[in-house]
């Protein structure tokens, strides 16, 4: 049951995404019937699933939502921006309710109620069958109306098909000369013995058919004893039947049917006239002319159609659920609790093919290695070469399986912005670009929090108040663009707002007040921008719901750094601010340069390396405090003796031989430094392994890997090394500049 529930919630997430996509398309002015159907289907599927799990809150809300969407579908209401807005809000509430049902979290009931009233206001005008129950869809009306459906339908369709005749129980009747009425109620023991009430009904039908040619029976099931789903014991017998046989059937023939089960059920035979019971209650054979075996399917269809009309056919649910994900492709769960992944089948097929080839290549190598003569040497080398490219392909294929478009996270940001807008009273449009850009799944999930925070910040701090915008000659509506793209093996995510830009004077003032920088510090614009990432920094005048609670951009930066990413800010006063996040495509594998420093083999991520070169001693300029700088083609940068910087040796490069090997490394904001190493060995792909799992964080080291010989090698955190060296040097020019200015 738990598994089923989990799958249901996963599907809910997918449906919600589908819903969000559809609604955004609608709000963009797209009004295709298919979009509307998709939106309707999503809500309908959630409702259907929720009903089978008895999630009443969810069902109740989804029902109202669905009714409103039905009006949209049938064209009774038009998808105006106002209506879409209500739907978007309803979607957020629905999403909350799904989370509520899943995690037992309380959701603000006022918000749900408000949204429901809005939805009911939309549907209230209609006079359709649906709309009639929508306005009075009070807390009780809907579930009573809705929930019992799977109860009296499911047992019927599975176990006791003849029950379907139920439909005509209260139907109009014509008098019939004394038909034989049989009522029978199976005991539990009947089912325990493996018998079935159905066999009895079929037996009765046979008797009827034998007595009169074309003789039919009419069976009605009494479900009144059926308890609610929660109390239902599957093995118990709750149903009883009342069967009307044609008058020609004799009591003996009829009684013979019950011979085998006389001890396992209560049965009674009466002639309609004898008991004084009005035959009115008994429908004539005519309305249901088919024999019992045929009646069931026919009526089941009728029943299903009738139910479908009322939008509550449980049978429709799996269909819709199966259709929507297929269209959605691999989509992430909102807040996945269980790691599972839906993968395009051809990606798995590709992988299978590659593995097949690998096995063949391995066999080739094995057979070659048996003949040890030098003639096969060449072939062996070739085979190993092809095996190498195969493993590379397999690796790519596996990565492709783990890859997911960032769409899921991006679309969630629409809601973040909507909510931020409603809290701040600003009007902001979020446009998305590059949602199809694929990154590793682990990364997709970890992007949610930092992006949420940055977008809230953009709305709260970046975009100015409406009056200010108009005064500045900008459109009243703010605009934020969230985009993703691949750039040289990394993913670049940018968040660009057209707000007021960073108020550097105020940032600096705040930073000084909070003792983040020294009062006499002279900082570049870039450095001031970066102050907003400092721990404890907040320029918010007052603590609002959105920001100023102490959890600031420093957390964002930490989150991005821990993903191996970098953040850069670009801000133009009056024009807006752009945050650029550069992240690796995966957290598992990295292209690295193998170097030796302090006698240890280490890896420097290729993405950080700009160039490598040999330098002469005369290129090095020693600063008074003992640190060195180097000028490369006019670019001045600090020289970092790597071994010493990591505390592995005390020898300074000044005492080293005349030629030093350096790696010029760069961080995201473009700051460069030169790492002095002893040797550059190789360039290779390495699998990233955590050190922190069983140890602590180490300065200058981001992770570790295992080399071909089984030894552990450290992966350097080049930006951290640069930052410490640059920070070390930068304060000095600043002070000098300050001194000169004074």
């Amino acid at each position, binding site marked *: 049951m738990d598994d089923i529930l989990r799958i249901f919630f996963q599907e809910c997430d997918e449906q919600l995404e589908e819903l969000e996509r559809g609604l955004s398309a609608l709000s963009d002015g797209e009004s295709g019937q298919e979009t509307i159907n998709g939106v309707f289907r999503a809500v309908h599927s959630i409702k259907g699933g929720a009903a089978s799990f008895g999630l009443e809150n969810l069902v109740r809300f989804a029902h109202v939502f669905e009714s409103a969407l039905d009006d949209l579908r049938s064209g009774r209401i038009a998808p105006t921006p106002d209506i879409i807005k209500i739907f978007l809000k309803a979607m957020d509430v629905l999403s909350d309710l799904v989370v509520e049902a899943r995690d037992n979290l309380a959701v603000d009931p006022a918000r749900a109620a408000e949204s429901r009233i809005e939805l009911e206001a939309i549907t209230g005008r209609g006079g359709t069958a649906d709309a009639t129950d929508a306005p009075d869809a009070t807390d009780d009306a809907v579930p009573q109306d809705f929930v019992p459906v799977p109860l009296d339908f499911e047992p019927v369709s599975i176990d006791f098909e003849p029950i379907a005749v139920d439909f005509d129980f209260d139907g109009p009747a014509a008098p019939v000369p004394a038909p034989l009425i049989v009522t029978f109620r199976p005991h539990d023991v009947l089912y325990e013995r493996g018998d079935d009430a159905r066999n009895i009904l079929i037996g009765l039908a046979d008797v009827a058919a034998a007595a009169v040619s074309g003789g039919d029976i009419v069976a009605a099931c009494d479900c009144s004893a059926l308890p609610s789903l929660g109390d239902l014991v599957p093995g118990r017998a709750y149903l009883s039947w009342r069967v009307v046989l044609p008058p020609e059937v004799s009591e003996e023939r009829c009684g013979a049917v019950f011979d085998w089960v006389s001890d396992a059920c209560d049965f009674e035979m009466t002639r309609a006239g004898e008991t004084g019971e009005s035959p009115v209650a008994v429908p004539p054979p005519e309305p249901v002319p088919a024999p019992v075996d045929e009646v069931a399917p026919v009526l089941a269809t009728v029943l299903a159609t009738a139910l479908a009309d009322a939008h509550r056919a449980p049978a429709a649910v799996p269909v819709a659920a199966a259709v929507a994900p297929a269209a959605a492709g691999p989509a992430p769960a909102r807040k996945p609790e269980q790691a599972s992944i839906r993968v395009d089948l051809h990606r798995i097929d590709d992988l299978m093919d590659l593995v097949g080839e690998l096995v063949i290549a391995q066999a080739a190598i094995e057979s070659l290695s048996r003949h040890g003569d030098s003639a096969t040497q060449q072939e062996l080398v070739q085979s190993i070469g092809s095996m190498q490219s195969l493993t590379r392909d397999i690796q790519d294929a596996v990565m492709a399986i783990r890859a997911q478009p960032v769409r899921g996270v991006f679309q969630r940001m629409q809601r973040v912005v909507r909510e931020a807008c409603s809290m701040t009273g600003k009007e902001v449009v979020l446009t998305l670009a590059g949602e199809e850009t694929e990154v590793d799944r682990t990364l997709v999930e970890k992007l949610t929090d930092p992006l949420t925070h940055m977008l809230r910040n953009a709305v709260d701090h970046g975009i100015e108040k409406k009056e200010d915008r108009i005064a500045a000659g900008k459109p009243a509506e703010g605009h934020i663009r969230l985009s993703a793209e691949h750039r040289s093996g990394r993913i670049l995510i940018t968040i660009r707002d057209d707000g007021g830009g960073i108020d550097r004077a105020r940032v600096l003032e705040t930073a000084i007040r909070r003792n983040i920088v020294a009062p006499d510090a002279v900082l570049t614009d870039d450095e001031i921008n970066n102050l907003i990432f400092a721990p404890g920094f907040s320029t918010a005048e007052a603590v609002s719901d959105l920001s100023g609670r102490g959890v600031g951009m420093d957390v964002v930066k930490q989150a991005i750094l821990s993903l191996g990413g970098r953040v850069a800010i670009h801000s133009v006063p009056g024009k807006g601010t752009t945050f650029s996040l550069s992240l690796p495509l995966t957290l598992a594998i990295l292209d690295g340069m193998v170097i030796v420093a*302090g*006698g*240890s*083999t280490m890896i420097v991520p290729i993405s950080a390396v700009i160039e490598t070169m040999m330098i002469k001693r005369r290129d090095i300029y020693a600063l008074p405090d003992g640190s060195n700088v180097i000028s490369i083609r006019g670019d001045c940068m600090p020289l970092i003796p790597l071994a010493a910087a*990591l*505390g*592995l040796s005390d020898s300074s490069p000044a005492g080293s031989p005349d030629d030093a090997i350096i790696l010029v490394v760069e961080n995201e904001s473009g700051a460069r430094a030169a790492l002095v190493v002893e040797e550059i060995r190789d360039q290779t792909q390495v699998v990233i*392994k*955590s*050190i922190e*799992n*069983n*140890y*602590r*964080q*180490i*300065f*200058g*080291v981001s992770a*570790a890997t*295992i080399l071909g010989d*089984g*030894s*552990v*090698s*450290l992966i350097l955190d080049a930006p951290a090394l640069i930052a410490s060296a640059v920070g070390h040097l930068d304060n000095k020019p600043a002070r000098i500049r300050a001194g000169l200015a004074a």
Partner: protein
Amino acid sequence: MTEQTEVADATIVKMIMFAIGEQEYCIPILSVREIRGFEKTTTLPFAPPYVCGAINLRGVILTVIDLAVYLNVPPQADNPRRVVVFVESQGGVVCGLLVDRVIDMADIDLGDVQSVSDDGSSLGGLVLVDNRMIGVLRLETVVGQLVGDTVSA
């Protein structure tokens, strides 16, 4: 002391005994994952002196603690029987303890452990086995220091 009331409740624990220099210590055998010969480790920057370095244990990167340095005991020089005992703490942290040799296993009644120092120490107490004094190592303290120590660079 709470420590003693705690150990009074628990009764007999199987311990593995090992020697560092001339001294003998023991830890609960259930915390031991495996024992391996000592291999070359990779030096870690800014590591405390007692950390030998990092080692690859079937794809997982672990640190090895030189218990002789950690406990400030003179190690046996050039001992070919030096082994690394891989242990897992209650918090799930795995690390290696470099010891001079593994001696034996013993059932130790925790009630017999005599406390020798306060709670913060890595030595939980002493116990007599066959008239030899065996130190009971507090694994959680050792591992806690390994993981929790802030880098003092």
